[in-house]
């Protein structure tokens, strides 16, 4: 379906991997991926992960899937966590990390930058359990080459405070339209990638713009999204990126409606139901994370074992439950502590994900396949967002 869109990108990646193949003995000359077999070479593996993705018992003694891995494989694990995709890209480019749990808006930047290597999925037995609609997607596969194994996914939901927002909203219009009943109590995500949320709303409300992918916006579509954000500004109480602060603002009533994560709603509903969370009719943005291997790793055997370990059904179940997202391995659903976990996070409902647009890095070459126009690249999104926020 999407083959050929990243041809230019892929060519550059191929050049990058060829260059790297020259200095890395572990790379197979043909595909760039490790030919295997995975040997029992001990080593020290440096893991770059979202908080909660690689727990070694230091956060909570009962939450630990790193130590069993170390005991089983003889690979010592060092974990470094990061707060945003942008920080992840910066750390990965600095080098020194062997594997990373990259979201879709980080992965393409890293692949293009030559920081990652293709992954030979034949060497990862647990890959068979991954949901089909997560396999071979544009954020983890470039020009037919797989760059990693999916970990989990979630949608950016519309959250509203029960009793304060009546009736319960089913559309994003409540956060975008000037006549919103929640004026002055709205929140929005404080990152350039939020421009895509505006684009998702425009896809439904202004079909004449012809947006088919919120991450592939030409200049006209992009300007329309920025205009929508400007229209939203008077409604906004605060922009959020720190989720603990968000929780406090909802509890105090400063924020009653806005984009959120399921995990935030769950924390707020911990003692009694205070908020509702829906995926509105227009669809939503979301994230889908993938474990990937550095092109410069010297512990390739440990890296493959880590990728296989992290998507083992019971490990994937633990990680997804700890973080609060849908697991990537279909067999994980039977192994969660809360038997409703997969239902709560819609892990098995294919339809639920059909209008969830996972974070991707916008590029000049349109990601939706259009070749007659140039799209606005992410660097311009960042510039526009920074200018918008400081207007």
């Amino acid at each position, binding site marked *: 379906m999407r083959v050929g869109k990243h041809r230019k990108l892929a060519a550059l990646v191929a050049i990058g991997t060829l260059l790297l193949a020259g200095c890395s003995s572990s790379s197979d000359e043909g595909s760039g991926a490790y030919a295997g077999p995975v040997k029992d070479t001990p080593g020290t593996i440096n893991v770059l992960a979202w908080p909660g993705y690689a727990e070694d018992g230091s956060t909570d003694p009962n939450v630990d899937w790193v130590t069993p891995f170390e005991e089983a494989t003889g690979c010592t694990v060092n974990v470094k966590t990061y707060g*945003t995709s*942008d*920080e992840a*890209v*910066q750390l990965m*480019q600095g080098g020194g990390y062997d594997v990373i749990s990259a979201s879709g808006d980080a992965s393409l*930047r*890293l692949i*293009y*930058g030559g920081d990652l290597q293709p992954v030979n999925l034949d060497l990862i037995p647990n890959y068979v359990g991954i949901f089909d609609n997560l396999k071979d997607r544009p954020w983890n596969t470039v020009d037919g080459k797989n760059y990693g194994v999916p970990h989990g996914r979630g949608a950016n939901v519309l959250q509203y405070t029960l009793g304060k927002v009546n009736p319960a909203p089913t559309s994003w219009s409540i956060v975008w339209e000037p006549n919103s009943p929640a004026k002055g109590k709205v929140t929005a995500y404080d990152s*350039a990638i939020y421009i895509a949320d505006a684009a998702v709303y425009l896809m439904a409300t202004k079909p004449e713009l012809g947006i088919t992918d919120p991450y592939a916006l030409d200049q006209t579509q992009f300007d329309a999204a920025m205009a929508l954000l400007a229209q939203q*500004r008077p409604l*906004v*109480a*605060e*922009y959020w990126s*720190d989720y603990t*602060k968000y929780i*406090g603002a909802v509890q*105090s*009533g*400063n924020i009653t409606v806005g984009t959120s994560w399921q995990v935030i709603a769950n924390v707020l509903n911990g003692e009694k139901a205070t908020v509702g969370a829906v995926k509105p009719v227009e669809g939503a943005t979301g994230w889908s994370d993938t474990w990937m291997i550095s092109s410069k790793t010297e512990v390739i055997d440990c890296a493959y074992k880590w990728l296989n370990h992290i998507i083992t059904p019971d490990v994937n179940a633990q990680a997804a439950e700890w973080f609060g997202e849908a697991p990537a391995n279909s067999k994980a659903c039977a192994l969660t502590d809360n038997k409703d976990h997969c239902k709560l996070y819609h892990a098995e409902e294919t339809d639920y994900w059909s209008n969830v647009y996972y974070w991707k*890095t916008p*590029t*000049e070459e349109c990601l939706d396949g259009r070749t007659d126009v140039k799209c606005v*690249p*992410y*660097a*311009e999104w*960042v*510039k526009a*967002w*920074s*200018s*918008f*926020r*400081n*207007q």
Partner: protein
Amino acid sequence: MQRSPKARAASLISLPLAWLLIIYIGSLFALFITSIWKIDTFTSEVIREFTLQNFIDVVTDRAYFNVTIRTLIVAISVTLICALIAIPMAFFMARIARPKSRPVLIALVLTPLWASYLVKIYAWRTMLYPDTGFLNWLISPLGGSSPGFGMIAVIIGLSYLWLPYMVLPIYAGMEKLPNSVLDASADLGAKPGRTFFGVVLPITWPAIIAGSIFTFSLSMGDYITVQILGGTFQMLGNVVYQNFSLNLPFAAAVALIPVMIMIIYLGSVRKTGALDNL
């Protein structure tokens, strides 16, 4: 080992001097160099090629002019508020309170510095909540309401945070004030108000300026308080924070704005002798 006093002085000063040159001047220089580089627009990697585009972007985009003005307004307001509170406080501590109680008073001024910056700002956040905060509860019977989150909240928060940095230099300046000068003023028939504005204030002026250097520079660079208390309001520090991971050269170019403002400020207060009071 070294006999000549000059050589001894040189060996003594070399370590702090190296610190100053390498760590401080060096990092400022690195900041400047970074601001004239490009980035790869897709991967955000810094490319070491010369460009003035970052400066052009900063100057031509009206948003960054506005944010500079807003930052200056906040820094000046915070400095004025701190000075207005600190001058009478320091005067009381240094001249009116019994000498025995002075150490206690200084300790009291310093106590807020013992608590974490974040704890204090989050405390202000709870107090400033528009409908449910303490401040709203306090003012609403009088017909007012909490200012909510925004520029005013940021000015309140920063004034609270930096007050001790204003009180201490002014206290030191007022303590040095010779009693004979005040006695002379009184003997010549000046009322207390006249003595304060005609004698105390001019003599302690360099100390007040010294305090203002702290409050002004600390406010210019702050971004965390703004994130917590600012609502949708932003300052220069937030621009740098938003851009440093994706466009380091641009962030460096923006970061040079407060550096330049501070250089101008320090240059203009140099002749008051304030720098000797730091």
